[in-house]
């Protein structure tokens, strides 16, 4: 989503009157394809009951979308702001699925509204800029008037072509609702898993210890030797229960993560892997605790996946924190072809990171290498400060 209040990225690189006029000329010429797109859309809409109509509508919308995207870039340059493409990603599937998703995208309807402006008043403004230059007598007005005319046109363009504050908030709320529901689901599932681990492991073993000790108590009188053996068995069972507990604790929050933070914990994790894992980069401070833990388990999942499927000789982890964003890259030189949607583990990682506005990108061409990039916006605290920074909600729209 764009943020129109963002500071100009390159104030000095604002286009001059000549460049602006070139843009205006381009906009004047768009009249033809825009009209074509409109005709395709209308005619296709009428014919929508037969297949060819659907193709026409889709074609018309794609033409308009292409030009609208170009206009976003131009308007962005004219006003000195960054305007990313706001469309929903196209879902996989045939043209009908594609068309359906485009019709469901509010930005498509904004495009059509913009089209009506761009072939009427907007077109007149652009034409005026061109005419002012071509008619040599008005060069004075052209030189001083063009920046203002183009700025006005760009502003109107962007009110059509970008979401307003309310819509951005709505989208943000929808994204937050989704990620909150996922975070709650995730923690409920974690609690169930913990309950199972404790119930089947530690608790069962402690019951066995208690039984052994009861037996030993009964044996002491008649057969002290057997009692001694039973007590020694009980001691061994206690050790097993402690070992169980240790692995449960590791699954909740690895102690080394508490001791050393993400940096040290990832290094410790790398040592425990069966194949060499090289850890590079580092963090100069501590991350907020929940993010530290989410990212640690994400890295553990990536490395475990690599060990399971990739058949690699070598893996690496790169840690870094720049411009308020933690970035962790996990890669391996295995056979590639990893599908992040295939395993529940990776989906779980994505959901857990989404709760912090974090993202996971997987690049895994067949033949490798597989590279997973995790990014989470967060603050880094001073390493000498014992308290960890709080999780700050990001202000970025979804």
């Amino acid at each position, binding site marked *: 989503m764009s943020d129109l209040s963002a500071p100009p990225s390159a104030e000095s690189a604002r286009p001059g009157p000549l460049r602006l006029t070139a843009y205006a000329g381009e906009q004047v010429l768009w009249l033809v394809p825009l009209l074509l797109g409109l005709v395709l859309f209308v005619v296709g809409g009428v014919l929508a009951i037969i297949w060819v109509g659907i193709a026409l509508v889709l074609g018309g919308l794609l033409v308009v979308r292409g030009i609208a995207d170009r206009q976003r870039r131009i308007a962005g340059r004219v006003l000195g702001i960054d305007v990313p493409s706001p469309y929903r990603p196209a879902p996989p599937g045939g043209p009908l699925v594609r068309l359906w998703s485009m019709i469901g995208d509010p930005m498509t309807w904004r495009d059509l509204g913009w089209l009506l402006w761009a072939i009427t008043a907007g077109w007149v403004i652009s034409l005026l800029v061109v005419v002012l230059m071509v008619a040599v007598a008005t060069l004075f007005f052209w030189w001083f008037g063009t920046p203002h005319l183009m700025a006005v046109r760009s502003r109107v363009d962007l009110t059509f072509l970008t979401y307003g504050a309310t819509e951005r908030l709505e989208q943000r709320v929808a994204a937050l609702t989704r990620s909150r529901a996922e975070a709650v689901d995730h923690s409920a599932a974690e609690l169930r898993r913990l309950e199972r681990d404790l119930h089947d492991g530690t608790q069962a073993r402690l019951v066995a210890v208690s039984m052994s000790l009861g037996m030993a108590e009964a044996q002491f009188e008649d057969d002290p030797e057997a009692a001694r053996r039973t007590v020694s068995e009980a*001691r061994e069972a*206690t050790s097993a229960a402690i070992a169980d507990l240790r692995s449960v604790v590791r699954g909740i929050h690895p102690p080394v993560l508490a*001791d050393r933070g993400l940096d040290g914990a990832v290094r410790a994790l790398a040592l425990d892997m069966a*194949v060499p894992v090289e850890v590079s980069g580092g963090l100069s401070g501590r991350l907020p605790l929940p993010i530290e833990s989410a990212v640690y388990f994400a890295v553990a999942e990536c490395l475990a996946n690599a060990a399971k499927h990739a058949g690699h000789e070598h893996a690496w982890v790169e840690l870094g924190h720049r411009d308020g964003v933690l970035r962790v890259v996990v890669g391996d030189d295995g056979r590639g072809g990893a599908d992040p949607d295939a395993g529940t583990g990776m989906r779980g990682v994505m959901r857990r990171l989404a709760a912090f506005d974090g993202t996971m990108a997987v690049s895994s061409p067949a033949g490798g290498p597989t590279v997973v990039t995790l990014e989470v916006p967060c603050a880094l605290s001073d390493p000498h400060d014992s308290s960890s920074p709080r999780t700050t909600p990001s202000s970025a729209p979804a």
Partner: protein
Amino acid sequence: MARAVDNAVELDGALADPHVDGAVLDVRMPPSFTDEGLRAAIAVRERRPGFPVMVLSQYVEQLYARELLASGEGAVGYLLKDRVSDVRQFVDGVRRVLGGGTVLDPEVVAAVMARRRDEPLDRLTAREKEVLSLMAEGRSNASIGAALFVTEKAVAKHINSIFAKLDLPVDLEVNRRVQAVLAYLRL
């Protein structure tokens, strides 16, 4: 002579005492309950090279084992806390650390051995790997023999064979051989 302290600040004072012969430390202790026990162990061994330290913890990490071993030759131990329940073996371990030996928790040794390694370690037979693991735990030949139900002489033979296969000098003392083996394992 024994002294008990329950926080890192007093610990620093106790470790500065020249009459203290060695220390048994918990990795976690007040005030921050992270790894100050380990840091204290490494710090004191920096000031007093070869100072015997046995570090106990609820969990063991290869990373910490590496750091301890890197803090100087021998006289260092790293065990899970619940190993204390086998009192005889624990006291034996502390004695060995005081005598300059190295005692590592079987869990650390197992983790190291589980890592895929290059060539030379693959040349060892299964029995030799068992012997190597027990050596890394700091056990004596007699103790290794008892654990594997073989004679001490057979153990010595295995050890010589291990040293030969790993290109290590044969005539090292009991404690130093562990160090040499661990160094070889790149722990």
